[in-house]
């Protein structure tokens, strides 16, 4: 495997980065849809894969992905690197991610502002971290390590949260903005996660959108969530990616597009996966919601262009 010849400062090498997908709706690639997707080739802007599903040496998954790459830009989304983990980064996993990126040559690569591994045990969950000067330096170093290994810029996704730490003095959008400043990474703004956090732990979503550096946002995620109401009337929203995007999340998406601008927008649907046409329908709805948001914007209120 090759390493970058020299440590790259990614902010200085924007021109070397691959072209991002069009700023329109894309879909997650599901095994059950792959044949129909190739046969019918619905006009979605891109497809996104979970890197961890392509970490085998060969076989049908790679064969399918090669065929799909002929027709769609591909985004590689990692769910297992544990950038927020306090124990050392799993370098075997980083090597495996680098191999997926090398084989796929994706238009976008993203990972999470979250932890999922502790002392070598993988939890298959993305948990938030407290936002402190210490964790900021720690995560920034791990993003540097990742970008150096992959030889490219990655986008970092805001997590969904059910808990809030007692000692977490830095607001999340400022934490992300500082990661962008220190490492040259971009932001994957998950609008459903932002809505879920607003409901569960009281984040102010519009203030959040104002605080995020618009030009660093390289992608949006949209998904459905489960709204659970307890007998005492209290409620929690669980980010299960198992249904259509909820109406208030569409409203927040319009607000995000109005402030930040249109970007490649992924419909995530990972449990109770529906037929392909339902996924595409959601992706096309994202296109029209984004168009509406841009049309409603006041003249002179142009958002910052994304840094590619």
């Amino acid at each position, binding site marked *: 495997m090759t390493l970058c010849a020299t440590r790259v400062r990614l902010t200085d090498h924007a021109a070397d980065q691959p072209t991002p997908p069009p700023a329109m709706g894309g879909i997650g690639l599901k095994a059950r849809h792959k044949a129909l997707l190739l046969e019918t080739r619905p006009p979605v802007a891109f497809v996104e894969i979970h890197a*961890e*599903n392509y*970490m*085998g*040496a*060969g*076989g*049908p*998954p*790679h*064969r399918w992905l090669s065929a799909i790459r002929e027709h769609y830009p591909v985004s590689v989304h990692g*769910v*297992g*690197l*544990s950038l927020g*983990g*306090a*124990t050392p980064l*799993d370098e*075997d*996993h980083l090597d*495996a991610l680098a191999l997926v990126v090398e084989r796929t040559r994706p238009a976008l690569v993203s990972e999470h502002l979250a*932890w*999922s*591994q*502790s*002392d*070598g*045990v*993988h*939890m*298959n*969950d993305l*948990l938030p*971290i*407290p936002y402190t000067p*210490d*964790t900021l330096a*720690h995560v920034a170093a791990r993003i540097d390590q990742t970008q150096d290994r992959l030889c490219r810029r990655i986008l970092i996704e805001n997590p969904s949260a*059910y*808990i*809030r*730490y*007692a*000692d977490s003095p830095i607001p999340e959008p400022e934490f992300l903005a500082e990661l962008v400043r220190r490492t040259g990474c971009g932001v994957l703004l998950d609008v459903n996660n932002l809505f879920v956090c607003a409901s*569960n*732990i*009281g984040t102010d979503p519009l203030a959040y959108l104002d605080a995020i550096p618009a030009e660093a946002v390289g992608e949006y995620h949209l998904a459905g969530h489960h709204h659970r109401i*307890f007998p005492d009337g*209290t*409620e*929690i929203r*669980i980010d299960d990616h198992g249904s259509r995007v909820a109406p208030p999340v569409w409203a927040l998406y319009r607000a995000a597009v109005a402030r930040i601008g249109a970007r490649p927008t992924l419909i995530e649907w990972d449990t109770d996966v529906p037929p392909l046409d339902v996924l595409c329908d959601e992706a096309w709805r994202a296109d029209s919601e984004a168009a509406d948001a841009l049309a409603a914007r006041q003249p002179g209120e142009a958002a910052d262009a994304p840094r590619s």
Partner: protein
Amino acid sequence: MRRVREFQTRMRDFAFDSGGRGQLLSALADCGGPPTLERLSIHRNTTMLGLSAALGDAFPVVRRLVGEAFFERMAQDYLRAHPPRRASLLTIGGEFPGFLTGYAPVAELPYLTDVARLDIAWTHAYHAADAEPLHPQILATLDPERLGELCLTPLPSQRLLASAYPVDAIWRGNQPDAPDAEIRLDSGPAHLLIHRPDMAVEIHPVSRGAFSFLMALAARQPLAAAWDSALATDPTFDLAGELAALLAARAFGGYSLP
């Protein structure tokens, strides 16, 4: 980072249901609404249910044999004893067959361990490196005087599996589209070659002699020594016929002559 690390260790133990929650709660703020413990248990559910589902996807025939609900309980017991060490779940459950051997609730299904080994072998073959199989007529192109020195290398996808039970029949009979069929557990042992010559995984029942022959070849022994191994297992082993059948099944990925 020390406090963060401690919290993450405790949270991990809580998620795998082996740790207390007191010190977790003291690190968290009250957000109103559902109590913090209820919030933490969402993470525990995500971990345990997500990993159980991944284990079930890796062992579809075991899951079908014991039923979804039983499998989920069994999976959680397994995951507590053997939490996954890799973020990619394609190969989850490496120790699952051994776990099943000692798992009392399935003691009445003694073939389950070998069915799990066959599920693993299938998954291994599915994700193994691609390789072009040797052409079945390859032997005709080689010097017949030197065939005894020939080393035949297996495909990267190859696994060999021997069982006292007819696990291939059990496995086929429990595929989603399989018709109902009666499987006799006393119908004798199975010797199986599992591999993927192209994009589809194949399971070939082979003779005991051929199994021993393939094991010797996989251990890089030349053809003459592998033939001796096969004859030691089965004195009636027919080299020409068995080798032609293995080549026709595209069992080999390459060869070398010293």
